[in-house]
C-alpha cells in the first residue's frame, strides 16, 4: 500500500469534499486513525484509466493552514508532509464550492502556493447555477495557474476528467515543495481571491435562495424549535416503531441457532458454552442492531442535509447557559446512538475546555447500549398501562430515563464548568451550509460502516466478556448433593458476594453485582450476563427454563431494586470503548479516571435515592 501514489483531498468545510471522496472511491474505503491523535483517517483506492491504483485520503475540512482544532492540524500536517504516519501526498485535489468562490479561493491560493502538483475541483456547479451563478472554469484555471475541473460529486459529473488530470500530473515532473505562506499574507490572499472570483464569474443574477426560505422557518425561535422537537420525537419513535420486525427476525434466528445447538449436541459443557454463553450472550446484544441503524440513519441524514448546524444554532442559547458551545449539541446528539462517535465528534470544538466538558458529559446521553437494559427491566416491572392521551406508562418511564440523562448532563456541565474545567466560555462560530438532498449511497455507506463497527464490537468485546463470565460462572462445579446453587459456588459468584457488600445498601442483590462486573465491558452485557446467570441457575429446575428473562427477574427482584437498577444505568460509565476513546482523546488517564469516578458516584447516589424513596413509599 505504501508504494501507491498518494493524493489528498483538501478544502473548506462544506465544499462537498466527502461526497466527492465517496463518488471517487465508492465502497472501497478504509477508516482508521492517524497515530497519536484520534482524527479519523479516511482513505480509499481510485483506479486510474490504465488500471494503476492510487490512494486517496479525505482530509478534515479547514479554512486555512493555520489550525484551530486537532482536526485542522492533521490537515495542515499532512499537506506539509509533517504528519507522523503519513507520507507527503504526491498531488493535492483542492475542492472549492463553486457558489462560494470568494471565500474558498483564498484557501485554494494558500494551497497552490505550496508548489505541489495541484488540481482544483470546482464542485457543486449545479447548486451555483441554482443560485444564478455562471462561472468560467477556464478563466479560473488561467488565473490560478493550475487545472480546474467542474464537478458535481453527487451526480458523478467531471470525475473522469479529474482522474485523467491526476494521471497526467502523477506522470509529470517531480514536484517541489515550498513553505506555507506567513499568516501576514492573509489579507493579500483574500484580495487576490476576490479579484480571481470576479474574473471567473460570467453572470450573477440574484435569485431566491431555497436555503434562505427554509431558514425563515427552521431558524425561527418558535417554529424552528417546534420543528426540532418534532424531528427528535419522530426520530425516537422510529427507533422503536420501525425496529420491531427486524428485531423479531434476529430473535428468531438466535432461537433457531440455540435450538439447533441443543439438539445437535449432547448435554454437557460444550452445549452449555454454546447455548448459554455464545448464542444467548451475543444474540441478546446483536438484537439491537436495527435500532442503532435507525438512529444513525437519522443522524447521518440530519448531518448530510445541513440541518444539524441549524439544530446547534437553536440549542446554543441553552448550551451557553451551562457553559457549553452550541457546537457541543452535535456530538451530544450523536451520543444518543453511541458515546464513542459522539466523543470523537468533539474534535470540531476548538476550545479545549469546552471540548473536555463535552467529552465528560457525553456518556450521560442515553446511548443505544442502554436500551437492552432499560427494555428488559421496563418490560418486566412496569405494567403496560395507558396513563391517558394514548401515552403508555412503559414509554413514559423510558422517556423519563432519557430526560434524567439529559438533566444530569446539563447539571454536570454546569458544575464542571465552575470547577475542573473552569475558564472563559467557549464560543459558537460556525458556517451554516446550504441545504441539500443527501445522496442515498452516502447515507448507505455511512450506515454500513456503523453496522460493521457494531458487529465487530459484538464479536470481540461482548463475545469475550460473555465467554469469560460463562467460564467464571461454570467453575468450579458445585457438588451435585451439596444443595448449593452453581452460581453461588462459582468463582464469579464469590467475587459478586464480595462486591455485594458495597451494593447491598442501594438495594442491589447478588445477581446484579454479578452482572455488573462483565457489564464494565459494555452496558448491554448486563442483560446477557443476567440471561446467562439465570439460565445456568435454571438447570436445577427444568420448569424454569421455559420462562423468559423478564419473568425470572420479576420473581427474584422487588420493584425498588429494579428501579434502582434503572437509575444506576442512567449514570454508570460501564463501557470500555467509551473509556478507551476518552483516554485517546484526552491523551492520558487523568480524565477517563475522573469520568469513571464522578459517574460511578452519581450512579451510586441516584440508585440509592431511588431505592430508599421507593421503599419508603411502600412500592416493595
Amino acid at each position: 500500500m505504501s508504494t501507491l501514489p498518494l493524493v489528498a483531498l483538501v478544502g473548506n468545510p462544506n465544499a462537498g469534499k466527502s461526497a466527492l471522496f465517496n463518488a471517487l472511491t465508492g465502497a472501497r474505503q478504509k477508516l482508521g486513525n492517524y497515530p497519536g491523535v484520534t482524527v479519523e483517517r479516511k482513505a480509499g483506492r481510485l483506479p486510474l484509466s490504465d488500471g494503476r491504483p492510487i490512494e486517496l485520503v479525505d482530509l478534515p475540512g479547514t479554512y486555512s493552514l493555520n489550525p484551530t482544532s486537532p482536526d485542522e492540524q492533521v490537515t495542515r500536517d499532512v499537506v506539509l508532509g509533517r504528519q507522523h504516519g503519513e507520507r507527503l501526498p504526491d498531488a493535492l485535489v483542492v475542492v472549492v464550492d463553486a457558489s462560494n468562490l470568494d471565500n474558498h479561493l483564498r484557501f485554494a491560493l494558500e494551497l497552490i502556493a505550496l508548489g505541489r502538483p495541484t488540481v482544483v475541483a470546482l464542485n457543486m456547479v449545479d447548486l451555483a447555477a441554482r443560485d444564478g451563478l455562471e462561472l468560467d472554469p477556464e478563466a479560473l484555471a488561467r488565473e490560478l495557474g493550475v487545472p480546474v475541473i467542474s464537478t458535481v460529486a453527487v451526480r458523478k459529473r467531471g470525475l473522469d476528467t479529474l482522474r485523467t488530470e491526476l494521471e497526467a500530473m502523477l506522470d509529470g515532473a517531480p514536484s517541489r515543495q515550498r513553505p506555507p505562506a506567513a499568516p501576514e499574507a492573509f489579507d493579500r490572499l483574500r484580495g487576490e481571491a476576490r479579484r480571481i472570483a470576479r474574473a471567473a464569474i460570467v453572470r450573477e443574477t440574484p435569485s431566491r435562495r431555497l436555503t434562505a426560505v427554509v431558514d425563515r422557518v427552521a431558524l425561527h425561535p418558535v417554529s424552528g424549535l417546534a420543528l426540532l422537537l418534532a424531528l427528535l420525537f419522530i426520530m425516537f419513535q422510529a427507533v422503536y416503531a420501525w425496529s420491531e420486525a427486524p428485531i423479531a427476525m434476529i430473535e428468531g434466528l438466535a432461537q433457531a441457532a440455540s435450538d439447533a445447538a441443543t439438539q445437535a449436541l449432547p448435554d454437557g459443557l460444550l452445549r452449555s458454552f454454546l447455548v448459554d454463553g455464545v448464542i444467548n450472550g451475543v444474540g441478546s446484544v446483536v438484537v439491537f442492531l436495527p435500532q442503532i441503524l435507525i438512529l444513525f440513519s437519522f443522524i447521518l441524514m440530519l448531518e448530510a442535509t445541513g440541518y444539524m448546524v441549524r439544530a446547534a444554532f437553536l440549542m446554543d442559547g441553552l448550551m451557553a447557559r451551562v457553559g457549553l458551545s452550541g457546537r457541543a449539541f452535535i456530538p451530544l446528539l450523536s451520543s444518543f446512538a453511541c458515546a464513542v462517535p459522539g466523543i470523537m465528534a468533539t474534535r470540531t470544538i476548538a476550545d479545549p475546555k469546552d471540548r473536555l466538558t463535552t467529552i465528560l458529559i457525553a456518556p450521560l446521553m442515553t446511548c443505544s447500549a442502554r436500551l437492552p437494559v432499560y427494555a428488559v427491566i421496563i418490560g418486566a416491572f412496569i405494567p403496560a398501562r395507558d396513563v391517558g392521551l394514548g401515552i403508555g406508562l412503559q414509554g413514559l418511564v423510558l422517556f423519563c430515563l432519557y430526560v434524567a440523562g439529559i438533566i444530569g448532563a446539563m447539571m454536570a456541565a454546569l458544575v464542571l464548568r465552575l470547577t475542573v474545567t473552569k475558564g472563559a466560555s467557549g464560543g459558537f462560530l460556525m458556517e451554516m451550509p446550504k441545504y441539500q438532498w443527501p445522496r442515498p449511497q452516502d447515507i448507505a455507506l455511512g450506515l454500513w460502516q456503523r453496522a460493521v463497527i457494531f458487529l465487530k464490537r459484538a464479536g470481540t468485546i461482548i463475545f469475550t466478556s460473555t465467554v469469560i463470565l460463562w467460564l467464571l460462572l461454570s467453575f468450579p462445579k458445585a457438588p451435585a448433593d451439596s444443595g448449593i446453587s452453581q452460581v453461588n459456588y462459582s468463582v464469579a459468584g464469590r467475587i459478586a458476594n464480595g462486591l455485594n457488600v458495597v451494593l447491598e445498601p442501594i438495594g442491589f442483590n447478588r445477581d446484579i453485582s454479578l452482572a455488573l462486573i462483565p457489564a464494565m465491558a459494555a452496558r448491554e452485557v448486563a442483560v446477557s450476563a443476567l440471561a446467562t446467570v439465570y439460565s445456568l441457575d435454571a438447570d436445577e429446575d427444568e420448569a424454569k427454563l421455559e420462562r423468559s428473562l423478564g419473568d425470572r427477574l420479576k420473581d427474584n427482584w422487588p420493584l425498588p431494586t429494579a428501579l434502582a437498577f434503572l437509575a444506576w444505568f442512567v449514570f454508570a460509565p460501564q463501557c470500555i470503548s467509551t473509556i478507551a476513546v476518552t483516554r485517546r482523546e484526552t491523551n492520558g488517564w487523568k480524565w477517563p479516571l475522573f469520568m469513571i469516578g464522578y459517574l460511578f458516584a452519581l450512579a451510586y447516589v441516584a440508585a440509592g435515592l431511588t431505592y430508599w424513596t421507593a421503599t419508603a413509599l411502600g412500592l416493595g
Partner: protein
Amino acid sequence: MRLTDLPLRQPAYVDLIDWNALSTSDGQRLREFGLCEGAVVEALHHGGLLGRGPIACKVGRMTVAMRRNHAAAITVRPGARDGRA
C-alpha cells in the same frame, strides 16, 4: 451601531472590528469567514426564545452563526446595497 443592534435583513458595512475583544482563534475564524472592515453583513436570524441566542448573518455568499459577544465586537453602518460586496 453594533451588529447585535442591526435590524434583521438590512445590509450594512462593517466599520470596525474590535479584535482585542476576541480571542486569537475566534478573530482568525471571523477573518476566514470573510468578516473584516469594509465587508457587507446582513443579520438574518436571532436565535433563542428570549433573544439571548446567537445571530446568523450573511457575509458574502456565506451564512455564519456567531454568539452575541462576537457580534457586539463588530461595529456596523447600515445602508449597504446588498450582502454581496
